[in-house]
């Protein structure tokens, strides 16, 4: 029997134990845990969250920290990379809570990984704030410690359907194509429900699976159903391809909406003139003009601060929502008066505050109930806000008769 080499492995196990970082848990630092996807498929979104977390921490610490009750204490954000791997996100959430003793966790991008992190948070009674998870299913298993700054999809789709019916004469036929993935799927289904409720005729309704490399079949079918309104959801690369293929196959409609496409700068960069006229609804846009509490009193102040850091790249709803969540936390801590998990949780539940990101007030299931979510459109290579009227900067343009 060859010599058995388990002995050679023993030192490796010891080394692993030593590696484990010892954090001094003290009451004088407000620690936020942030499992982020810095590598792997969701790396883009993870890096966006990381940027605004650091911006906020620097700005707040420069101003002496956050006020908790009567004390001003510094903030610290503990980051780990979970490599866009769901199970590892849960593992890291546990490490943040048990080893780093964080008071609050910022959930990672996307509804799926948010649920995994929130489940761990719930077990340890540590509040979890999801700034990029919008499908109701994430908040459907009555997790008292989970709060989301994105409003439910239904808010967005009902508002958009109503807005389009008002501004587009004889809008009757709508075609919906969604990506079969947690968030894009719920947006597509919410739109179908909203359209039927508003009496529109849904002439095409299908989902395309993850891993679809080509949309010709779906786009041709949409063309054949000659809709007045085309509504497509998916990640940026799906939407870039879909828009190209619509142009390739000569498929268009008076209103073309793509969800969360135009909200990202990569979309307009990659498509150039093709992005013209594409509408989208989003949770936030930098051209909105809100005023509120916290490190960034107005949208413009956040926008300029961001441009300085990003070298001219515009912030999108991911940046807005996550920065808004942190700003909201300042208000929560002031009301909570202590760093105890339950106190923070109760203060979070009672939150009803205005921020540069917009209104934040959590409903029964922990989701932000803010109503008037901005509707945007690409006009002359720029993003214009069409709704709500209070911050509208342009009128809807019909894409093509």
């Amino acid at each position, binding site marked *: *029997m060859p010599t*058995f080499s388990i002995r050679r492995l023993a030192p490796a196990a010891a080394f692993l134990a030593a590696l484990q970082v010892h954090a001094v848990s003290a009451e004088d630092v407000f620690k936020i845990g942030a499992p982020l996807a810095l590598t792997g498929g969701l790396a883009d979104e993870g890096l966006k969250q990381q940027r605004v977390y650091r911006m906020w921490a620097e700005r707040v610490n420069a101003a002496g920290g956050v006020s908790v009750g009567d004390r001003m204490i510094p903030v610290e954000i503990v980051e780990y990379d979970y490599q866009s791997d769901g199970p590892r996100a849960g593992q890291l959430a546990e*490490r943040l809570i048990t080893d780093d003793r964080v008071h609050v966790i910022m959930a990672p991008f996307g509804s799926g990984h948010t649920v995994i992190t929130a489940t761990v948070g719930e077990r340890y009674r540590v509040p979890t704030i999801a700034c990029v998870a919008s499908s109701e299913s994430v908040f459907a298993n009555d997790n008292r410690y989970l709060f989301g700054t994105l409003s439910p999809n239904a808010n967005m789709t009902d508002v958009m359907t109503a807005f389009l019916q008002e501004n587009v004469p004889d809008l009757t036929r709508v075609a919906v194509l969604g990506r*079969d993935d947690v968030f894009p*799927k719920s947006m597509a289904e919410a739109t179908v429900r909203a359209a039927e409720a508003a009496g529109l005729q849904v002439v095409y309704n299908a989902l395309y699976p993850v891993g679809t490399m080509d949309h010709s079949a779906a786009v041709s079918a949409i063309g054949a159903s000659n809709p007045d309104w085309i509504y497509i959801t998916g990640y940026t690369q799906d939407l870039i391809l879909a828009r190209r293929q619509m142009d390739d196959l000569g498929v268009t409609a008076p209103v073309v909406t793509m969800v969360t496409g135009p909200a990202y700068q990569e979309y307009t960069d990659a498509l150039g003139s093709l992005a013209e006229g594409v509408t989208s609804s989003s949770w936030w846009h930098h051209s909105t003009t809100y005023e509120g509490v916290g490190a960034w009193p107005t949208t413009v102040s956040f926008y300029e601060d961001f441009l300085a850091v990003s070298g001219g790249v515009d912030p999108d709803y991911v940046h807005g929502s996550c920065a808004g969540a942190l700003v909201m936390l300042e208000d929560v801590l002031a009301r909570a008066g202590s760093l105890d998990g339950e106190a923070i949780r109760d203060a979070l539940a009672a939150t009803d505050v205005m921020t540069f990101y917009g209104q934040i007030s959590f409903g029964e299931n922990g989701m932000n109930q803010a109503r008037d979510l901005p509707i945007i459109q690409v006009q002359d290579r720029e993003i214009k806000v069409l709704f709500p009227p209070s911050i509208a900067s342009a009128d809807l343009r019909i894409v093509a008769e």
Partner: protein
Amino acid sequence: MMSRLGLALFAGWVVILATTPLFAENYIVRTAIMIAMYSALALSWNIIGGFTGYPSFATVAFFGVGCYVGGIAQRAGVPMALAWAIATVAVGAMAAALGAIILRLKGHYFAIGSIAIVEVCRLVISSWRSVTGGGDGLNVPLLRWHPDAVAQFFLLVMIGIMLAAFVMNALVDRHRLGFGLKCIRQNEDAADMVGVDTTRYKIVGFTLSALLCGTVGAAYASWVGYIDPTDSFQILMTVKVPVMALMGGAGTVLGPALGAAAFVILEEIFWANFLEWNRAILGAIIVALIFFLPGGLLNISWRRAARRLRGRESAEAPA
């Protein structure tokens, strides 16, 4: 066979794993759970990949289907342990049925067939929305205990499955079935001529290699509390498991468990310290493994490594 020393050291290792909650933080306990889980998967793979020499990449299909059957059963009110049993049997039946089809293929074609099984399972589960929640994923009822208790419980569960896989390996190794499977690996035609019912033996081997993967999947679903098609059918896992078995020594009884432990520990160390480059480093380890540990950690033979490095296994090497 397996020496007394090997068995003793393995028992010691199991004791260390089982007692991590006493001397380490939850993060280490969680790593121990992952080690036990991957050891069970690697040991299960060993039956078809190690003993029989059929390079199967279907592990994650068994794991994923185990997750879903266990999760759906639990959501329907079935008690946890029973749900796991149902998952095990269901995955075993699936493996037997699919095995009968793809085990007629050999070498690369079998490997591709096993990968195809993973993709078909993922596509079926993600499009069967009414039952599996499709792309939305599925919430599995959670154990409402104290987190430390939950971690310890699942540590013992995974270690239990690992031991079951270990015992299965040892029994098969001593039994006629193991002998026949090894004949098939060495020379399938000769095995056929010598009287081994190769088709039936391969199907039994394939099913045995699937059973406990189903159990692991179901237990994992109960532990994590949320499963979705992309995470439950990760291509990365289905390649990692054979690599772990190779690292330890495929075809031996202890090899896969040793390989899984070494791989998970190395992955944790590199991932924690080299943030951006951990995937490349892991890749480098795998490449190094191919050249310097041809037989795996259990039978380190520098002679065989030297042979491979000098190109004795290249196309022009004398026969």
